[in-house]
């Protein structure tokens, strides 16, 4: 390359390329005092029909309800009944127990892969509870909380994670890429942000048909860099689609901090304002704030007032997946220093503070969750674990590529079964 140095007689300053760098790396003492988290109850709650141009504070600030006193504060308090709060806490505890067990299962070689949502439980469970059960959700891969909240059987989840012979997805998908039409839960892709325009399309279809159901999608802050997300925002705004675009800002996309998605320059909620989309930035570790934001956005969509982008400001407490080791790129202190605490602990303390819960019941609930997950895991293992023969018949590999099997797949299916006979003989059960 030719020397790009400026001519000696030029007065123009030399340019400098900015490469974002997170504040803390392994070994550093994390200190998040620079993050302005605002005060619980401080944000105004506008009418659901508000014009996005009036939402600047909500897009740059932080909607919080639960205070350090464990009480609910301000106009965003969703005023949920104790029963609903206990149900929410129960779902969050169940997800945490499930994640623990499945993570261990992967380490024991029962499956290839797992992803926990530790620290982010509220961002899927609270919105799922605020939506109607037949509202359509287009999740990313860390929203197992939606399935738990919607009552999807744990056994089906584990069968899918084990890719065993009872797996409803026939062993075709990476673990945790669930799908359940019955639960209005879209097939998880694994490619990033592709679900966002799909959710908008579903919402457009619902509106075109005069339906009353709305759609919601979840995407990580890192994935908002994908073109699909921006296409989704454009279409959502253009057609005033009844859709909720949830951005889970958990600070990390594998090893890339949110700065690589533009987080150093603005908030992710503010992306909505540029599109003319209502925007809320919410304490993602505050289950009440998460519920209230989702409820507000759902009301807005149902009233034909259009889409809402919600940024859930949270922290990915664990690694990206079982294939990741965050000690290689971020400070181990971050999790404990995170200024917004732990969502399960905060909701638990709130329930205790209002006299509707206690530590004994909580401990009993945790135990019950762990026991149920353990028993269900044993049940699922009867259907096999990954790589131990109890998979779906070979021919299923070729099915569902098309509605009908074309000749070339018929030929390839015959070949696959022939190869299996060559390798194992006809004695071994196959196909």
């Amino acid at each position, binding site marked *: 390359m030719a020397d790009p140095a400026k001519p000696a007689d030029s007065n123009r300053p030399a340019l400098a390329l900015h490469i974002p760098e997170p504040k803390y790396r392994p070994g550093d003492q994390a200190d998040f005092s620079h993050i302005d988290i605002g005060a619980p109850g401080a944000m105004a709650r506008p009418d659901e029909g508000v014009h996005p141009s009036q939402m600047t504070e909500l897009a740059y600030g932080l909607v919080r309800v639960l205070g350090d006193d464990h009480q609910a504060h301000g106009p965003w308090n969703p005023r949920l009944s104790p029963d609903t709060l206990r149900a929410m806490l129960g779902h969050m505890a169940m997800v945490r127990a499930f994640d623990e067990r499945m993570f261990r299962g992967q380490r024991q070689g029962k499956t290839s892969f797992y992803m926990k949502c530790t620290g982010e439980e509220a961002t899927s469970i609270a919105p799922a509870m605020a939506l109607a059960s037949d509202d359509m959700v287009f999740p990313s891969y860390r929203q197992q909380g939606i399935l738990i909240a919607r009552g999807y059987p744990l056994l089906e989840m584990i069968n899918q994670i084990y890719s065993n012979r009872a797996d409803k997805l026939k062993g075709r998908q990476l673990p945790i890429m669930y799908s359940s039409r019955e639960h209005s839960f879209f097939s998880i892709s694994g490619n990033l942000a592709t679900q966002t325009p799909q959710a908008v399309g579903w919402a457009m*279809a619902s509106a075109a048909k005069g339906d009353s159901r709305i759609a919601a999608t979840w995407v990580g802050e890192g994935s908002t860099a994908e073109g699909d997300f921006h296409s989704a925002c454009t279409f959502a705004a253009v057609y005033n689609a009844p859709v909720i675009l949830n951005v889970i800002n958990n600070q990390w996309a594998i090893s890339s901090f949110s700065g690589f998605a533009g987080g150093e320059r603005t908030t992710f909620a503010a992306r909505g304002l540029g599109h003319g989309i209502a925007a809320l930035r919410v304490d993602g570790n505050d289950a009440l704030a998460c519920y209230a934001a989702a409820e507000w956005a759902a009301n807005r969509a149902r009233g034909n007032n259009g889409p809402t982008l919600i940024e859930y400001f949270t922290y990915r407490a664990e690694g990206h997946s079982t294939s990741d080791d965050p000690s290689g790129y971020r400070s181990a202190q971050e999790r404990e220093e995170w200024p917004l605490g732990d969502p399960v602990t905060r909701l638990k303390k709130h329930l205790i503070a209002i006299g509707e819960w206690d530590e004994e019941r909580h401990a009993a609930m945790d135990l019950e969750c762990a026991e149920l997950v353990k028993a269900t895991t044993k049940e699922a293992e009867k259907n096999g674990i990954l790589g131990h023969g109890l998979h779906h018949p070979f021919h299923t590999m070729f099915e569902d590529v098309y509605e009908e099997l074309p000749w070339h797949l018929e030929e390839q299916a015959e070949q696959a079964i022939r190869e299996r006979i060559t390798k194992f003989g006809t004695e071994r059960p196959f196909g």
Partner: protein
Amino acid sequence: MSEELSNEPATLGENVIAERRLNMIEAINEALDIMLERDPDVIIMGEDVGYFGGVFRATAGLQAKHGKTRVFDTPISECGIIGVAVGMGAYGLRPVPEIQFADYIYPGLDQLISEAARLRYRSAGDYIAPLTVRSPFGGGIFGGQTHSQSPEALFTHVAGLKTVIPSTPHDAKGLLISAIEDNDPVIFFEPKRIYNGPFTGFYDKPVEPWKKHPDSVVPEGYYKVPLGKARHVRVGEALTVLAYGTMVHVAQAVCEAKGVDADILDLRTLVPLDIKAIEASVEKTGRCMIVHEATRTSGFGAELSALVTERCFYHLEAPVERVTGFDTPYPHSLEWAYFPGPVRIGEAIDKLLKD
């Protein structure tokens, strides 16, 4: 000759008027109109397709007739167009998005390849993507490198997609209706060079309008041409020609000009492919020429050549010939030097027939 290879459409509506002649745009417009009428879940969207009726007029009049929520304009975002179509399909609609030129489809590829094509498979049938992506393709209109490409091989390579390319107004209508009714995602490439007349490749001769061509007779009403069935354009003994789209007409004209008794198959659907028709023809003639306008390397002709060699090797009396565009971007001023026209096809025929 087997029945499915007959020149007649597989099924016909009740009101056949033998002499009603349409060009390909009119035939496509009619197919869309019929499907909007028949199925309330069909919707059409794309850049400029609504009020204006499309840059090639394929959707003219449809918004006025069927309403704005059935036929509407979209943002200039192919990723968005395909992405929302996948979501609409999940809802239960049957979207027919238009990509204004095949050359513009690339921003939508991830939504087609990773999403639409695999949705049925990855969800084990829980969700399907019954979309038909219509897009004008191919050159010969001085469209330069961004309005002339033939990217069909990108899509035939993708498990889960079907790729359909009509060559006549009659087939365009019947295939499009089949594609829209199909529950799998279909890429429907329309050879824009022959929207208004069956181009023969002799670009210095006057363009013939469709109304002089027998396959411009388009029955009224609903009928289907099945996907996966080739059309026997001409029955002959000397050599087999495998072509689709514009090149069907070019190859036919060259064979006629040279007086070659060719057995010409219009493939109509690349995936699923009518392999039986191909095998029967090559086994009969022992010589095979494949013609497409797309670039040569890894083009669909390579797949056809491999299939013919694998399956008909002992019937072959000469190496399979591929006649294709060159491996360059589609040039503007040298369009006819790029185009696999009469000279290139003629040389291939001579090579195939020399022994």
